[in-house]
């Protein structure tokens, strides 16, 4: 892959959201792999605040160099091709923060995540947000918002999805949704998180904690079947 391609694949992140919300989901001392870790901010946060054995993969070589210069264990690699080289169950959590929509094969990446990790934490920008829907409806053009801020021909986000789409994929793949929430761009928890259809309309970001086996309904949210019915 040429450096230009790698540049396009890079996804800008809101580190505050990742640090706070994802940090809350990870148990202390856990083994963590952060895919698309950027310069390693989350890895450092998990190591210093929770004593985690956290490592990262990043596709952008300049960010890898920056992370390494900060003393963080990061490896240059691509979520689409490098996860296959990790052993089964090597991690307690595998994190994919705001990157799912930018990988070539999101379903395969999720499968790999839940093969090498007991749990997966996935965050992505919600394409079902009302502004996105509204712009497409009103203007008939690809939406440009604070979250979706790159032109269609240069965006790294080649696989956008909505919160409800993601619930459907989890059900189809047999992943248990242990926790989920919708948030605004700044990482504030959305009050409508108990109501998936509202979350899908008003949440700018979505965050899911998945577990490998589907053991019954995703109880706490009460979302599962209701979300798929309509």
């Amino acid at each position, binding site marked *: 892959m040429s450096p230009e391609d790698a540049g396009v694949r890079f996804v800008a992140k809101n580190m505050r959201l990742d640090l706070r919300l994802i940090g809350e989901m990870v148990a202390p001392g856990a083994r963590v792999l952060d895919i698309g870790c950027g310069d390693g901010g989350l890895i450092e946060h998990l190591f210093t605040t929770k004593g985690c054995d956290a*490592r990262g993969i990043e596709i952008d070589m300049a960010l890898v160099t920056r992370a390494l210069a900060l*003393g963080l*264990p990061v490896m240059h690699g691509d979520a689409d091709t490098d996860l296959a080289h990790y052993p089964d169950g090597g991690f307690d959590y595998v994190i994919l923060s705001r990157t799912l929509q930018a990988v070539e094969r999101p379903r395969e990446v999720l499968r790999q995540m839940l093969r090498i990790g007991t749990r997966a934490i996935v965050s992505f920008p919600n394409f079902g947000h009302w502004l996105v829907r509204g712009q497409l409806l009103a203007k008939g053009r690809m939406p440009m918002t604070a979250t979706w801020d790159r032109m269609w021909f240069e965006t790294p986000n080649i696989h956008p999805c909505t919160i409800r789409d993601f619930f459907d994929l989890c059900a189809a793949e047999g992943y248990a949704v242990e926790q989920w929430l919708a948030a605004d761009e700044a990482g504030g928890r959305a009050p409508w998180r108990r109501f998936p259809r509202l979350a899908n309309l008003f949440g700018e970001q979505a965050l899911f904690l998945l577990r490998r086996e589907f053991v019954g309904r995703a109880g706490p949210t009460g979302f599962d079947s209701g979300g798929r019915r309509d």
Partner: protein
Amino acid sequence: MDQIVSPGPASAETTHQHVTFEDGLALECGARLERMTVAYRTYGMLNAARTNAVLVCHALTGDQYVAERHPVTGKDGWWDVLVGPGKPLDTDRFFVIGANVLGGCMGSTGPRSVRPNGEVWGTEFPPITIRDMVRAQKRLIEHLGIARLFAVIGGSMGGMQVLQWAADYPENVFAALPIATASYHSAQNIAFNEVGRQAIFADPDWQGGQYWRTGAIPARGLGVARMCAHITYLSEQALTRKFGRRLQAAPKDAGEVMALFGGMFEVESYLQHQGSTFVRRFDANSYLTITRAMDYFDLGADHGGDLASAFRGTRTRFLLVSFSSDWLFPTPESRAVARALNRAGANVSFVEIGSDKGHDAFLLDEPDFHRTIAGFLSGCAAHAKL
């Protein structure tokens, strides 16, 4: 090639700091060295707990003079840019050890050493492997009273030694930094080594390897070997940037016939200079022995064809670095090692540094590379509570 003169290896007269192990070393080939000398240099201070030692493994033609003026050549240490006070490998903080490899010619036991019967080893010197080199270094480390190395670092053949260290002594290596290297020597690399060896064999002064008897050295053969190898250390861009098609001297008038041979282009003169300076410091039989050791190296094959099994269960922290224009040890070979380490569940960092300087980049002033090394070492030091 006329510039290559034969002043004789000056290093033979220089006494190098060393330790001799009277009980020798059993080699992988089955032979046994009755006595073994390891020449070494150290920089910085070993702390009271003896936990801050870093072993630097040198490449094919390097030696133990890592970060000081070389007593034979008078040149700066080969890794002066990386090793020293306040540098990425900070000698104010770490106790840095450089050792001449087994089979070398800068004071450690090698083909130029005198064997117990009073004769020079020469080509009778047993074949050495990378593992033998590492086992010799292990003896030195024990001699220095160091139970666990904080880090082992090296580029090229030095990186092979780092991988061997991590595979054979995982409990004795906290961090391993194999730079611009691979888990096996590729067919292309063996091929280049063979050209070099054949050049040495073809030199009448080599005298079947017994050149010391007449006081001659196979300077032309060894010089050609060095020239050939030196091309593989550079990149096309680096050669173009440095020399392009520039001529040594333009013809004085149109009537002058340009020399068909000799130093016409600048790049030729550069390579010839590389060759002629090399033969003054390096022993031809050592060159044969060490290039062979590199060719033998295949860590995966030594572990049933699965490189990951060489590292399974390791707690060593790894940093692999490759350089984008290195075609001798290209990035995919480092990536393959990184992936094997992933399969083994190891803690591995890996980055390719953008550089147009070819394989030699690991020896040169590459700020991104140096930042990476410094950051990784300080991160490891935090984990080691150093």
